[in-house]
């Protein structure tokens, strides 16, 4: 008898069916992966299980008995716990304070601490219950969330995109913890769209597409290719084909760059790097090691403290953003909805952001030219939208990214800085973003690609610079590099000698 079972779940939102007749069976002592593209309905399904949403029809059974889950409180009482993508921790509270938060009964922090310490040892979580959450690295915060669930004695742990923010090393640690929990007979669901991780850690996988279950298989009887095909509904090319391109002259040159963040902390500490025409230089690193500040400083969205930046023959270190753009630099920022686009404006208005000066007749905007530009953009880059008057905020993440990337590509700049171009995108969109970037490389553009996804860097980049704590700790030729070595380097555990 399965420990947890969802039968014929139907959930409609106005205008969409998020789940149609979804069946999900989770065994005790198993890690179950729920795979699907964004919008496939996997989050909705888990939110129904956790009591966030009510279902329109269907039933949930625990140990074969039907149960009612009307709220997260019911779910917790039934032994179901969830770790959200954004952690629900009070940063200024200690681990033990965070754990007892919301629990009823007598408040005895000392006793709670003792229990937490015991649980932490038992599951090899290495957490000090007295530590303040704000001092803990992301990976440890995630383990605190898991510890919270164990304290409540959850039998089923749901983890939503658990590896999105982790280093390779932290990911391995997480998987070890999850395997330990499984061996004790607990059930675990990980919601993800990363195929390799599923094959690494999960026992079974349920694939969803358009609100329906399109496959439920054992991980031992499947491959990455087959999962991708199930998820997207067609064959997907997960390996980018990189044709040899002759490397040209250095287009973007960075020398001894130092940059501070808003808090005045030095985040970039002496970066020197060249990007040549017809080359993609990748910057690998865990988020927060100075990559964002580096990208912003190159575009002059953030002032540099020391050092210089050259674009072809011009020193651009202290020029304005508009001058950077005019000299041939374009930028695809990591934050698509707040920096790369104005979500309240139309696709047409967003299509000229950064090139608004080129779309004018005297002081007036050239409406016809703008319309043609926007229509060309959505046709050429396959942005799925009803019209160019649609607000950009209504686009899905993948379509918005295609709009931004396409806009920056149409600028035809000699150099491009691209930051986390496929974060949160599904496989189909990733495939097309990759193809566009490689196309730009073939056209002789110089591309600086900042990404936390090692697979992306290994597929696209010619050279990979590893950034750790504001420094470049090694520049490797992408042809002879392994994921393991790269993983160690971005965690600061190994340097290229």
């Amino acid at each position, binding site marked *: 008898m399965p420990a947890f079972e969802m039968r014929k779940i139907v959930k409609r*939102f*106005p*205008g*969409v069916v998020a789940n149609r007749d979804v069946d999900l069976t989770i065994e005790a002592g198993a890690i179950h992966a729920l795979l699907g593209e964004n919008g496939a309905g996997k989050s909705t399904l888990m939110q129904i299980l956790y009591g966030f949403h009510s279902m329109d029809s269907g039933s949930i059974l625990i140990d074969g008995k039907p149960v009612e889950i009307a709220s997260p409180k019911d779910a917790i009482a039934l032994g179901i716990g969830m770790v959200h993508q954004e952690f629900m921790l009070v940063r200024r509270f200690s681990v033990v304070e965070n754990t007892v938060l919301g629990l009823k009964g007598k408040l005895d922090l000392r006793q709670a601490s003792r229990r937490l310490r015991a649980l932490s040892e038992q599951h090899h979580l290495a957490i000090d219950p007295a530590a303040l959450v704000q001092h803990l690295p992301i990976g440890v915060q995630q383990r605190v969330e898991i510890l919270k669930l164990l304290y409540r004695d959850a039998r089923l742990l749901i983890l939503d995109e658990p590896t999105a923010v982790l280093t390779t090393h932290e990911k391995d640690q997480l998987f070890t913890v999850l395997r330990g929990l499984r061996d004790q007979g607990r059930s675990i669901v990980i919601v993800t769209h990363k195929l390799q991780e599923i094959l690494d850690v999960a026992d079974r996988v349920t694939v969803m597409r358009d609100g329906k279950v399109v496959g439920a298989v054992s991980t031992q009887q499947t491959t990455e290719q087959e999962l991708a095909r199930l998820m997207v509904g067609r064959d997907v090319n997960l390996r980018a084909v990189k044709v040899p391109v002759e490397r040209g002259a250095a287009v973007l040159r960075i020398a001894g760059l130092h940059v501070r963040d808003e808090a005045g902390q030095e985040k970039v500490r002496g970066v020197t790097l060249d990007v040549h025409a017809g080359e993609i230089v990748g910057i690998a690193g865990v988020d927060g090691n100075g990559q964002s500040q580096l990208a912003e400083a190159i*575009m002059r*969205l953030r002032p540099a403290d020391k050092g210089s930046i050259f674009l072809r023959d011009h020193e651009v270190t202290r020029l*304005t*953003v*508009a001058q*950077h*753009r005019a000299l041939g630099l374009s*930028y695809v*920022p990591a*934050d698509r909805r*707040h*920096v*790369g*686009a*104005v*979500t*309240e*404006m139309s696709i047409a*208005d967003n299509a*000229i*952001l*950064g090139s*608004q*000066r080129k*779309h*004018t007749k005297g*002081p*007036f*905007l050239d409406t016809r030219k703008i319309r043609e530009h926007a229509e060309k953009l959505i046709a050429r880059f396959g942005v799925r939208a009803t019209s160019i008057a649609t607000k950009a905020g*209504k686009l899905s993440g993948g379509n918005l990214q295609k709009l931004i990337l396409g806009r920056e590509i149409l600028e035809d700049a000699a150099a491009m800085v691209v930051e986390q171009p496929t974060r949160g995108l599904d496989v189909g969109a990733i495939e097309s973003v990759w193809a566009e970037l490689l196309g730009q490389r073939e056209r002789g553009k110089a591309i600086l690609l900042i990404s936390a996804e090692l697979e992306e860097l290994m597929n696209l980049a010619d050279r990979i610079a590893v950034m750790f704590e504001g420094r470049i700790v090694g520049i490797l030729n992408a042809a002879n590099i392994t994921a393991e070595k790269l993983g160690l380097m971005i965690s600061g555990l190994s340097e290229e000698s």
Partner: protein
Amino acid sequence: MKLIERRVSPADSPLAITTAMVVAALAAMLITSLLFTLYQANPLQAYFALFHEPFASWRGFGYTLVRTAPLTLIALGTIVSWRSGFGYLGFEGCFVIGAAATSWLALSTTFSFWTFLPLALLLSFAAGAAWAGVVALIRARFGGNEVLISLMMNYVAILIVQYLVSGPMRAPGGVPETALLPRATWLPFILPGTRAHAGILLALCAALLVWVLLRKTRIGYELIVSGLSPLAARFGGINVGAQLVFAAFCAGGLGAWAGTVEVLGEQHRLMDGISGGVGFTGIIVALLARLNPLAVIPAAVLYGGMTVGANAMQRRAGIPSSITFILQSLIVLMVLASDIFRRYRVKLT
């Protein structure tokens, strides 16, 4: 099945928006009717009095236009500044500064009307632009809070004018006010038999100009991007600080023109308390028009008319004219709140 269900995205067709606004205005009037009954007045008669005079009598309509002109200009100033993300509230100040600058020019020179008017508009605009520009500079350069600073500067401006009319610019006599401005500086009256003056034409031109600026020009595009998302604006190579200062200049200038129009068209002299709160009512008009420069005109006519009708209502139905202000505020509250209804649909099946 639920009777009312939430829409995925709010209904945003013009019909839905207009319906929601009209229903909201009617709801506000319904609530105000309850206040009327406190005075044993028949709400229908009261509303007749409120709307008959300003919209159905020739003389009253003239007054309506007199009130509409400054309201429109201030609402336009609000739109330019708020659209750029500059939450300026200092229009009372701009109004009196503009009125003072205009009065000074009118009293100290003897130009013919067609020489005087452009000069007065220029001087007044510059004075208002400087007044609001200071706040924008503080915000752009040092990150000061423009809402607080601009509100406080209203009092500074009002006190400066108080000083001027009781000191340097005071005319002989018992009341702190300037002498009557020379007739040659007065704005021409445009409707025979009424006090309606050419200020309304200036307001209409300004509305058209602001509409063109925001909708059709590159500067307007950059200004709106700056307001919606400063980060995206900087990413697009827009100098957000400069946009802010530019918007503040326009806002201050438009606010000062409201003062100019009031002095040259209606009061014909500078006195203490000349603004009568129009610097705030204008902001309300802008909100009612949802920051759309063309929608400002009907909104300002409605509000200007209600101000005129309030006195008639007091005379005829014995209802305190201040209830009109309650009604005006309720309409804005209801219209802003009506957005929530566009997020739901009623299912009758």
